[in-house]
């Protein structure tokens, strides 16, 4: 059930908040139980199979963690759990061919992170409710963020006060409304433009191809970051702080910088649990043999190999299409060039040039990511390079309006403050200013609800 649909906005959301408020009158533990029940209901609405997989996975991990608690070899327990998780992911995503259970990737990655931390001595939760809510909190199930055990878990294991706080409800609502607007007003209108252009990849000329690529990169950004804002807002309403997943990624000055700003929670998960351990093992191994830290072999082993493995994981996270693999390879190449440039102490480009060059890399890779097949991606990239003809400027006013809309969206991407900043300004306002913010957000919510009728799915659902 996407957050920008009427059944969620008019049914599930009021039920979720009203139930939490009523339970808050009894105790904080009652609120936790309610949130867990709401999360399971959310899975069940998606499909009974989704509920069964989520409940089975969470219960299985909790039992595994209890086993780890008294074991002299917790690492072996963790390894067994991770093997089972990877098999479940691979089975559901790649072998069955159907839609995977709701939130499978997200609750599995969150729990793998927990297993790895616990294998190194992190405290194992005592209450099943706390653990289950941490792993299966419904706002994080559709498109993240992936919760970090060390930072995310404590707020689930502490005792909650009970009553919902008006300040949290206000902040959470502001996040949610701004996310909804990004999704339904900025991202969704681009969907038909993108779908139509990609369907006619073989007949695109230069300008329509660039228009399609730009429209897709903007759709993906507003769709995904809008979703994240809504998830953060839902958590905030009940007093939970979910981590940011975006930090103005299209303002990145290098591809390395881009990956530190895009889908931050997944990047951090892979850096912490895959890239860093692999790199460190290789570095330690080389140091133990007295190998030098520079040169081509060091670069290949300590830089290229871990980056390639990590980007392969990013590719497989999205699915088993060849386009995702090529997307991963492209970003591996960009990252390695970026790292090599830094190591060679190449001069830094001026800000505008570095932002433009980074975005160009991201844009080309996003075309491959969006395409359904490699030939389709090749045709659009060919068209962007002018190999399918330059075409001519359209005299249709709608084409010019579309181009102006894309330009306006780029303006928002590069000039607008982050959602967290806007919410902070609104929260600090007092008196007449506060009323002004209230009215503005109320109007925005109305606009969002009106616009969301007939909206499609979040792009990131399928992953």
């Amino acid at each position, binding site marked *: 059930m996407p957050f920008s649909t009427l059944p969620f906005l008019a049914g599930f959301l009021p039920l979720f908040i009203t139930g939490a408020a009523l339970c808050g009158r009894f105790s904080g533990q009652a609120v936790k139980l309610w949130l867990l029940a709401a999360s399971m209901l959310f899975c069940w609405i998606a499909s009974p199979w989704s509920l069964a997989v989520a409940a089975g996975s969470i219960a299985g991990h909790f039992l595994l963690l209890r086993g780890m608690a008294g074991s002299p070899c917790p690492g072996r327990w963790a390894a067994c759990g991770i093997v089972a998780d990877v098999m479940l992911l691979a089975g559901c995503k790649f072998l069955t061919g159907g839609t995977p259970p709701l939130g499978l990737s997200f609750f599995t990655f969150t729990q793998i992170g927990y297993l790895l*931390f616990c294998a190194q001595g992190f405290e194992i939760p005592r209450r099943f409710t706390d653990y289950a809510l941490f792993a299966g909190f419904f706002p994080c199930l559709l498109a993240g963020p992936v919760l970090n055990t060390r930072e995310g878990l404590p707020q689930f294991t502490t005792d909650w006060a009970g009553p919902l706080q008006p300040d949290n409800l206000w902040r959470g609502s502001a996040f949610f409304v701004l996310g909804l607007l990004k999704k339904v007003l900025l991202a969704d209108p681009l969907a038909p433009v993108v779908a139509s252009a990609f369907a006619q990849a073989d007949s695109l000329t230069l300008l329509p191809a660039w228009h399609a690529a730009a429209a897709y990169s903007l759709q993906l950004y507003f769709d995904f970051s809008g979703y994240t804002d809504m998830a953060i807002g839902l958590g905030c309403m009940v007093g939970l702080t979910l981590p940011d997943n975006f930090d103005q990624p299209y303002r990145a000055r290098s591809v390395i910088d881009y990956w530190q700003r895009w889908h931050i929670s997944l990047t951090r998960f892979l850096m912490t649990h895959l890239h860093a351990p692999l790199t460190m093992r290789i570095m330690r191994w080389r140091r133990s043999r007295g190998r030098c830290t520079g040169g081509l072999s060091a670069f290949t082993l300590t830089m290229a190999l871990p980056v390639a493995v990590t980007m392969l994981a990013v590719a497989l996270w999205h699915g088993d299409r060849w386009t995702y693999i090529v997307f991963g390879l492209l970003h591996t190449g960009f990252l390695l060039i970026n790292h090599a440039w830094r190591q060679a102490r190449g001069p830094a480009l001026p800000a505008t040039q570095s932002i433009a060059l980074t975005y160009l890399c991201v844009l080309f890779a996003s075309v491959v990511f969006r395409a359904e097949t490699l030939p389709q991606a090749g045709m659009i990239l060919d068209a962007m390079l002018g190999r399918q003809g330059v075409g001519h400027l359209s005299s249709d006013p709608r084409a010019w309006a579309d181009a102006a809309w894309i330009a306006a969206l780029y303006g928002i991407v590069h000039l607008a403050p982050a959602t967290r900043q806007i919410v902070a300004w609104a929260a600090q306002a007092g008196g007449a200013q506060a009323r002004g913010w209230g009215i503005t957000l109320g109007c925005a919510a109305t606009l969002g609800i009106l616009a969301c009728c007939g909206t499609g799915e979040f792009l990131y659902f399928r992953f």
Partner: protein
Amino acid sequence: MVDVLADVTGILRDLLHDQNLQVTLQTRFGDIAGWDSMDLITAVVEVECLYDLQFDLQDIDRLVTVGDLVDLVFFKRTLTAA
């Protein structure tokens, strides 16, 4: 504490090819010009080699400031000595 900070500063200077780099215990790694997460991994391995220590995943995940790394070295050395 001062010696470890000096060692860490030296490692960071070599890593970033900037012999004028100045850091304090409060300096956040992310705020150092030209820093990226790969530098943290390299710096941690260099510190491990220098002090003959080995850090865990959990230790590295919580490194935000230079002071965190210095504290970690002290903590691990104390554990090793005990």
